[in-house]
């Protein structure tokens, strides 16, 4: 993740064991669809054939029908909306806190000695364990949900920022010093870009955890949201509702993640690594 000395470099496009034949490279974007397609087909036929009992695992077609029905009835959009709303605020708050604290702890020795042990101690509390306390202290309103999500987002982002900053190549920091940059300039112009890959990884896992905590938050008493659908499905013994909500989570999670991934490949085009990530 750190900087390399710049030298002659030809892009190495193929990943396979050193093969560098001078042919054209074919890409198979549809390759990624093979495995899921097979899985879904097998699932569908097994469900229809009765190998998977419908009260345990309904057929994918049935689940799709279920989702489409919810969408056309309109009830779906409310649930999706409220879930996204919670996630968004939780993510923003958690990321902001992580950036502030992470930058301070990563850069200032004093801040690290003061805060890092405490943060690490809190980090080692599995955030799910907070749920009962959060309910106890803040009730089951929106604020406790958002705070819970923010707590979930905070730690991976924080951890990656600190690791990113502390992993910045000393040589590049010296370049900044030689040009008499202030601490702030060094942070902004060297440490930030150099730790960007790590930061983006942090954002992506933070977003992943954010989704997880949406579920946790909506498990702890909600009357709307996809997590609520999940609990509702569980309480009413409707596996198709459970799986529909899981599918919805997967789709939405995928969308937010590819958004971050695009951001990543946009901002990291300068990296001279084994293979381009894009």
């Amino acid at each position, binding site marked *: 993740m750190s900087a390399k000395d710049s030298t002659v470099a030809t892009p190495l496009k193929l990943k396979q064991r050193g093969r560098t034949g001078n042919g054209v490279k074919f890409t198979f974007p549809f390759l990624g669809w093979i495995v899921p397609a097979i899985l879904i087909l097998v699932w569908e036929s097994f469900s229809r054939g009765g190998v998977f009992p419908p009260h345990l695992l309904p057929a994918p077609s049935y689940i799709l029908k279920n989702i489409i029905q919810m969408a056309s009835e309109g009830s779906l959009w409310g649930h999706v909306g409220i879930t996204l709303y919670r996630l968004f605020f939780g993510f923003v708050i958690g990321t902001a806190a992580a950036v502030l604290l992470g930058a301070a702890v990563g850069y200032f020795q004093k801040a690290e000695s003061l805060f890092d042990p405490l943060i690490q101690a809190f980090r080692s509390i599995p955030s799910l364990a907070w749920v009962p306390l959060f*309910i*106890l*202290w803040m*009730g*089951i*309103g929106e604020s406790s949900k958002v705070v819970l999500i923010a707590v979930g987002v905070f730690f991976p982002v924080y951890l990656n920022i600190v690791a990113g900053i502390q992993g910045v190549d000393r040589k590049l920091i010296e370049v900044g010093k030689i040009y008499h940059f202030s601490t702030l300039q060094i942070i902004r112009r060297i440490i930030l870009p150099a730790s960007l890959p790590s930061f983006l990884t942090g954002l992506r896992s933070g977003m992943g955890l954010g989704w997880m905590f949406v579920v946790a938050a909506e498990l702890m*008493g909600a*009357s709307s949201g996809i997590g609520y659908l999940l609990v509702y499905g569980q309480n*009413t013994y409707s596996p198709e509702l459970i799986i529909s909500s899981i599918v919805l989570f997967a789709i939405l999670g995928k969308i937010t993640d590819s958004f971050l991934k695009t951001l990543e490949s946009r901002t990291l085009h300068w990296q001279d690594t084994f293979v381009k990530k894009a």
Partner: protein
Amino acid sequence: DGAAKPQSIKLDYAYYSPSSLVLKKFGWLEEDLKEDGVKVEYVLSQGSNKALEFLNSSSIDFGSTAGAAAYLAKSKGAPVQSIYVYSKPEWTALVTTKGSGISSVEDLKGKKIAATVGTDPYIFLLRALDEAGLSQGDVEIVNLQHSDGASALTTGQVDAWAGLDPHMARVELEADTELFYRNPDFNTYGVLNVRSEFAEKYPAYAEKVIAAYEKAREWILDNPEEAAKILSEEAQISLEVAQKQLERNDFSSPVPGDVQVKALQSAGSVLKEDGIINKETDTDQLAEDLIFPDFAEKVINK
């Protein structure tokens, strides 16, 4: 004393309390409070433990629980009071699968039993064990929410389950299960609890809620068929199951009083013996502190 007015009133609804479902369905309370400008919000409780948790954290103002559950919470300092009896149910019993070889409580020794800690079925289980001369340590109690307990039993994950309606009625009808131990006296009534703070600040509104509950109770008594339909829709269970659940509910005496105090006191001594309630607690006094019939008496005897 009617001057104080809450911004909104938050109530729970639960599949084990048909009155709450009816009330939510028809929106009587909303109608009633509209002119005062007080909003009404409903939150689902999956069990007494959840309802009490919500009460404890001021997430709701009124919560439906089993009497013993409220009693247990009170013993831990939860500021709640039971002000109304929404039914005298026989909603809990010990359930096992047919052919499991369990036919009495004594057979449970060394077995795995699912129950939701802190709820009526759990307390029911403890009392049943106590009666049979067993203690908590003689069995393995797996803590599961009621609905999960039902599936754990039917998929053979546990040997027995301290069940709760409507889940119990459902597995009784839909799966090969049997209730091997029943005891209506060990059920500790379905009570409506209020946060003490709310009751102190807005007694008039506590009465209004009770009045609405009364309306629901009377409607159920008049329309048992339709009540079963509402229950089956809300809880996504079949009509048969809903009917069975309703059958096991007695909606006749809504005012809490000595009967409940007595029932709780005997539950309390078992809980104390099992170490779930502190040894120092005065269990008898606690039951009297919990049961608060004033509002209900005022509304019903009007």
